[in-house]
Structure formats: structure tokens, C-alpha cells
């Protein structure tokens, strides 16, 4: 199987061709070793950090921004998003607070990335 990719490890943006046959992965088109690493990871186990926001009750803002505590498998992005969208939390919330312990079975937590203070209305 062949796959075309753009390397994002530096601004060069080399066009990579990654070939997979059995257990071996070969990368061509890269101009440095970092491109080979990137190509391999992208076709074998691509991961991404997901950022979004969670609804807050009783806060100075209606939302708190969140992120996955580490990168998650790329094919789990929409499962994680669905869980984030169902989630509610109560103010106050602070940077680093864990809002979901294990998002969509990835083993990865969803953590707050801003402070939202409580307001008495």
C-alpha cells in the first residue's frame, strides 16, 4: 500500500511517499531523518491532541476550554468529541482540572485549559 503525505516536522513540507508491505514501512521523498520518523508514525499509529470546550454551570463564562491530556489515536477523534459534547461541569473550574477521566476508552483524560470562576446569580 502506498500513501502520500506532507511532512510537518519543519517548514520545508517535504512530500513523502510511504510504502507498506507486510511489516516493513519505507519512506521516500524526505530530506532528513525526521521526515522518515514522521512518515512511519503517520501510517502506523497517527495521533492527535484534541481541543474543544465543555459547558459550565454557574460560571462567569458559559464554556471552559479543554484538551486531551496527551495525544490520542487519530481514529478516536470523533468518539472523544462526542463525549466532550455530552459533558457538563460546575464552576469554578481551573487549568488542569480533570473533567473526564477516560475519554471514549482511550485511557486519556480531558482537562480544563482555562479558569472559569463561579458567579452568584
Amino acid at each position, binding site marked *: 500500500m502506498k500513501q502520500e503525505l506532507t511532512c510537518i516536522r519543519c517548514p520545508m513540507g517535504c512530500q513523502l511517499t510511504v510504502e507498506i508491505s507486510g511489516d516493513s514501512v519505507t519512506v521516500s521523498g524526505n530530506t532528513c531523518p525526521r521526515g522518515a520518523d514522521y512518515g512511519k508514525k503517520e501510517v502506523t499509529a497517527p495521533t492527535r491532541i484534541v481541543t474543544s470546550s465543555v459547558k459550565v454551570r454557574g460560571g462567569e463564562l458559559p*464554556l471552559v476550554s479543554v484538551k486531551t491530556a496527551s495525544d490520542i489515536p487519530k481514529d478516536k477523534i*470523533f468518539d472523544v*468529541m462526542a463525549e466532550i459534547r455530552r459533558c457538563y461541569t460546575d464552576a469554578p473550574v481551573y487549568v488542569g482540572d480533570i473533567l473526564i477521566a477516560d475519554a471514549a476508552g482511550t485511557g486519556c483524560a480531558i482537562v480544563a485549559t482555562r479558569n472559569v470562576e463561579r458567579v452568584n446569580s
Partner: protein
Amino acid sequence: MKQHKIVIIGGGPAGLAAALGAKAHGIDDVLILERDERLGGILNQCIHNGFGLHTFKEELTGPEYAQRYIDRVLAAGIPYQLRTTVAEITPNREILCVNAEEGAVTIKADAVILAMGCRERPRGALGLPGFRPAGVYTAGTAQRLMNIDGYMVGREAVILGSGDIGLIMARRMTLEGAKVRAVAELMPYSGGLKRNIVQCLDDFGIPLKLSHTVTKIHGKERVTGVTLSQVCADRKPIPGTEEYYSCDTLLLSCGLLPENELSKSASVELDPVTGGAVVSDRLETSVPGIFSCGNVLHVHDLVDNVSQEAARAGEKAAEFVKNGRSSGGTAIRLKGENGVRYTVPQILYADDMDEKLTVRLRVGDVFRNKALVVCYDGKEVKRLKKRIMAPGEMEEVTLQRDSLTDDVREIIIRVEG
């Protein structure tokens, strides 16, 4: 009239770092004026990650990066006023500001640091044909509505312009369940970072249509679709290439403009290329005691560079307050030529300059395997080989004080093969 040693206009990343820089260099009487309800500026709505790799050696989201600086400002006990809009700055550094509690107040400052940031180029400046239906937003407005206020701006979108905010919003809308039909870019290359094209468009199969623009907005009450056309080398639409895309939303990500209305009121000289102030190596504008930094000076790609530049503006404003004078000696002009669109700073005072000076610049086209060449009065003194340079990626050149002799009058930086 109130009086302060240093007043900083804007509480975003530039203003926060400038305040810390001034305080660290011995000025305690620093005041930040911010028109929004909170400190942090535009970072508050940039909830994606990728900030702070240089400053903190980790990838933070915008709000996290802002919070680190806010925490430092609070720990340093630096005062700030929120919901306070500056209406005018005079050349002798009187600042007229307004807020709901005090009404109109004039503050006299020994030094002023301009840190107001930039604005997006709006629809009116793009000359897009068609009606004016609801559903046309700048990408940053849509970002604020979604990330701060919690509103979904549309279900089916086309994005004009491939600036980073547009790319980030393509992903954001997709993650929230919208369909992004295409990103159209007038130029034959993207204005955004490669990483964003891969992770915001390629990841979700969103097509990037280079050399394309919107030639019609359809719909009367609400956007119902747009027509995209291919453009030729002179950026004029090519008849017969029209394609219709149905959508309820059009996002515009067509460039950022430094917001210098206040600088103009203070008679600060502006650079027609950057849209920001003309500054010396001390980040001082043409008006003594008024300094400029961050996106109001020139639009940056990385907030790390904003923080670094602003900290220097704070330091130099503190020196101005302590010494009571601007740079002296002979001014050396810095200019970009042959592919280099601009340099910041534009003026250098060799007598007063730091041992090393970082000159930031942008090129006007994509260049592969070329060099950035620095010339003093026509004589080449430095040649930096570059595998790739692009308009979307700011470049840096470092100048050493001891490389400059008394007779140098002009420094030119150019692209050469």
C-alpha cells in the same frame, strides 16, 4: 490628571510581557489598560494547542499560555484596569481613557507602550460581490462566538483565505459537526503554517483550492451558497471556471491588520508595509517615550516572538523612564529589498544598541534554496542560506554591535540566489 511611570495599552500577550519586562527592569509604577473583561487578549479564544514551544518547551493552548503570563503579572502585583477603552493618546503622552466607573479620565505617562494587537481584514475591504446576507463572518469572530460564547455559527461552510485562523476554524467547525466544503485561497500558496494545512484540512478531507476566490455570495436573508472561480497570475477571476458551493456560512481569513488608530492620534509615524509603527532598535516609535510591540507593530506567526519582543519593549521603556532620553547618535536605516518586504526595526542607533539585535522580516514570495544577504552600505557582511522561505513564516537575522563601524548609514537585507 492621574500620573504613572509606564502605561501599557492592551492586556494581551504583548501587554502582559511588556509589563513584566518593565517591572523586571526597575519600574514599579506600571499600569495596564485593557478594554475587554479579562486579560489575555485573543489567546482566550485560541483554544487549540501549539503555543509556547519556544518559551515553555511544551505545547500549550492559547488560554493556558495567557494564564501563565497573567499569573506572573498578578504575582508581580502589577495593576491593571479592565473594561477601559483608550480613546486618544497625545504626542506628549497624555492618555484619554473611558470606563463605566470613572467616566473619562486622563493619565499622564512618562512612557507609553502600544500593545493593541491587530484586527482581521473585514468583508468591506475585500470587495466581494453579492448581497449582504447573514452568515458571513471573519474567522476570528466565528472563533469567538464558538469558543467563548458557545454559539455554533453554521452547519455548512466555505472559508475564503487560508490564514491560520481560517484553517483552525475549518477543523473546529468540523469537530463540532459542521461540513466545511472548501477553503479557497487567492494566492498560489497558502498563508498558513504547513502543520495547520495537514492537521486542520488534510485530516478531515477538506479541499484547499489555491488560486481561487469567491466571485459571488448567494442568498438574501442568509447565505445559501457561494461561487468560487479560479484566478490567473494577476489574481483576476478566469471566466468559465465558476463552481457553485452550497453553504450557510462564509468565513473570511484574509489577513490581519495592526490596529493603529491610537498611534495615529499620537502622531506616530507608520510603516506602509507593516501597517505598524516605524521603530528603532529599542522599539521606540518616532514619538519619544512611545514604544510599540506585538501585533500592533507587525503581525507575528508565533506568540513566543510577541512575548519576547514585548519584554524588550518593557525593558527599553524602563530605561527611557530612568534615563529620561531616547536613543542618540546617528540613525542607520534598515531596509528590505529584492524579496524582503519589510524589516522591524527600521532604524538602528549603533551607539546605544545592545550587543546583539534580532531583526525580524518577511519575504514576499516562496523562495527555495536562496539566501538572506545583509549589506552595510552596499557591502555584503552576512549571508544566511535558507532551504525555504515563505510569506507565512517570519524570518530572523541577528546583527552584532561590533560588526558596525561609525560610518555605516544603511543596512539592506535582500534575497539572493
